[in-house]
């Protein structure tokens, strides 16, 4: 099995697909943390919300509309959270933030149960992407390739924005030293707000693209939260490089671990996290040295 080229192609693509999904989630979380020093445990709940929005919209207006509207809907929810809770929690310590967002997980979980019920929802992959694509002799679902492509496109766009545009420079300045950035005339509070909304929209996008792949359940946000946190801690908080590196490490270790070392696969990633924290207590590519 391991000498077959098809096997390696298939597993590499699976790993990439998982990595890209995690990247969409972790980039928002990590930049929010890097910029605002805010630990948002409810990020996973926003992802679940994105999946629910997508499932509801897709059943009437089709998948592509859902893919566009669901992230916007989640961004609106994010704005409400920012105005109601998060802007008030900015000055309190990480402990209080962890707890408020932990409470928020409970609230959003039960609200989605109230609105959508306990049963899993399913949405179909769009017709254009329901087939398989032949890659080096291996048939691979087109929809999963679409996720990989989407992840790469978002990564490229964010890398360009962060390194080449004015707002990117402002964000990098804010991550590096927010007090100094404010002194230089950057409206840091507005920057926080924009980044928070974009982060929420990306979480919603991740939920919307994951919805046809996995079934949409109230617990899905809680399930994805831990992998996302592992990604950003392995990668180092606040940086794009860290988010993509962490996502790839997680995706490959998890996928190949599951097929090559099934006995220890689930422990492997936690052991890796512990090892990284032991050797580099702030992760591999932290935004601040």
């Amino acid at each position, binding site marked *: 099995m391991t000498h077959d080229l098809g096997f390696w192609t298939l597993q590499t693509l699976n790993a990439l697909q998982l990595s890209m999904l995690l990247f969409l989630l972790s980039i928002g979380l990590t930049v929010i*943390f890097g910029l605002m020093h805010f*630990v948002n445990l409810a990020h996973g709940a926003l992802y679940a919300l994105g999946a629910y929005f997508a499932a509801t919209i897709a059943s009437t207006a089709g998948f592509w509309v859902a893919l566009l509207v669901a992230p916007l809907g989640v961004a609106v929810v994010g704005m409400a959270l920012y105005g109601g*809770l998060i802007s*008030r*929690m900015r000055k*309190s310590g*990480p*402990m*209080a933030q*962890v*707890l*408020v967002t*932990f*409470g*928020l*997980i*409970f*609230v959003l*979980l*039960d*609200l989605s*149960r*109230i609105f959508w019920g306990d049963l899993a929802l399913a949405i179909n992959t769009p017709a254009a992407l329901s087939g398989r694509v032949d890659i080096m002799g291996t048939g691979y679902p087109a929809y999963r390739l679409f996720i990989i492509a989407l992840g790469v496109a978002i990564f490229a766009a964010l890398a360009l924005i962060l390194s080449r545009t004015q707002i990117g420079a402002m964000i990098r300045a804010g991550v590096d030293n927010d007090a100094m950035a404010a002194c230089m005339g950057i409206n840091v509070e507005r920057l926080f707000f924009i980044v928070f909304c974009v982060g929420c929209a990306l979480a919603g996008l991740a939920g919307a693209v994951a919805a046809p792949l996995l079934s949409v359940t109230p617990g899905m946000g*809680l399930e994805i939260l*831990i992998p996302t*946190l*592992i990604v950003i*801690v392995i990668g180092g*908080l606040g940086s794009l490089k860290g988010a993509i590196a962490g996502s790839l490490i997680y995706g490959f270790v998890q996928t190949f671990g599951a097929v090559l070392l099934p*006995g220890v696969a*689930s*422990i492997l990633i*936690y*052991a890796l*996290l*512990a090892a990284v*924290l*032991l050797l580099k*207590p*702030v*992760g591999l590519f932290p935004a601040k040295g």
Partner: protein
Amino acid sequence: MFRHTPLRYAALIVLFSGAVFTAFTAGYFGMEILTEILILAILVLALDLVAGFGGMVSLAHGALMGLGAYAFVALATKGGLDPVVAAAAAIAITAGTGWIIGAICARSHGIYFIMATLAFGQMGYSYFFERPFFGGDDGMVGPGRFDLSFIGVDLNDGRSFALFCLALLGLVYLIAVATLRSGLGRSLTGVMHNEKRMRALGLTVWRVKADVFGISGAMAGLAGVLAAQHIMFISPKMLHWTVSGEALVVVILGGLGTLVGPLIGAVAFVVLKHELSHVTTYWHLIVGLVLIAVVMSRANGIFGFIEARFGPRTDRMIQSIQTRDDAKEAVKDA
């Protein structure tokens, strides 16, 4: 350092007499809830010891509790050890594991510490979830409760078991207070407030953290042993990170770093949970809202609020009585 204010004594007396009163009056269901509160209280005391006095916010304590339960059940049923010996061994194992986790994580701070402990906890969860030897996700059936018939106590009686847990909770509380008053506990608080300065003073910081984490791990292990005896069944769910998260919620709800507060938090949480789950299946929603409200109010939990509101007044009262007594004595001496 940890001090017993009059208010704390009063709260302890109220809690203790409430527990004893419930133990002698409650029916079967009430007794189950009381026992659940007492076991949770041991776990949250362990967590408050590291989080409230050492700044080590741990998400591994649920896993340490589960490890204690698994070690106890496996040693007693598969190893054929006497339950008491198995329990002692299980507590020793969780103490050792806690010490190692504390030593490894000692360099991490803040969110990284939380994540590192989370990683160790989830590692344990995955391990027990996948090992057929430990029953996998089906869990295991426990060996039954301790045989205390030599002192005439039958723990299979709900009331005796509740009182037994209460006695052990008292013991754990005393150990926690003794730890905090010892040199180790004072060093720990020093490390929490200024780690660099303590290191400059020549303290081996990681040893202090590891030692206290080990003591806390032993307490969590005891909670696991008792939980395994209480419901006579264990499953990997006990090790899941959400158990640790809930324990943290209880500590915060009650009042971080007060020892007494988490006890109040345990009572409030379990009672709230049971009462709400009668009324609605969405009890998490209400617990979440309460948690958000408590944290946003900026009070240090329920007990922190009470202390801030009434603490100074009771202190003043005691003080005025004392000065009056002193004045009398001075008059007498003159």
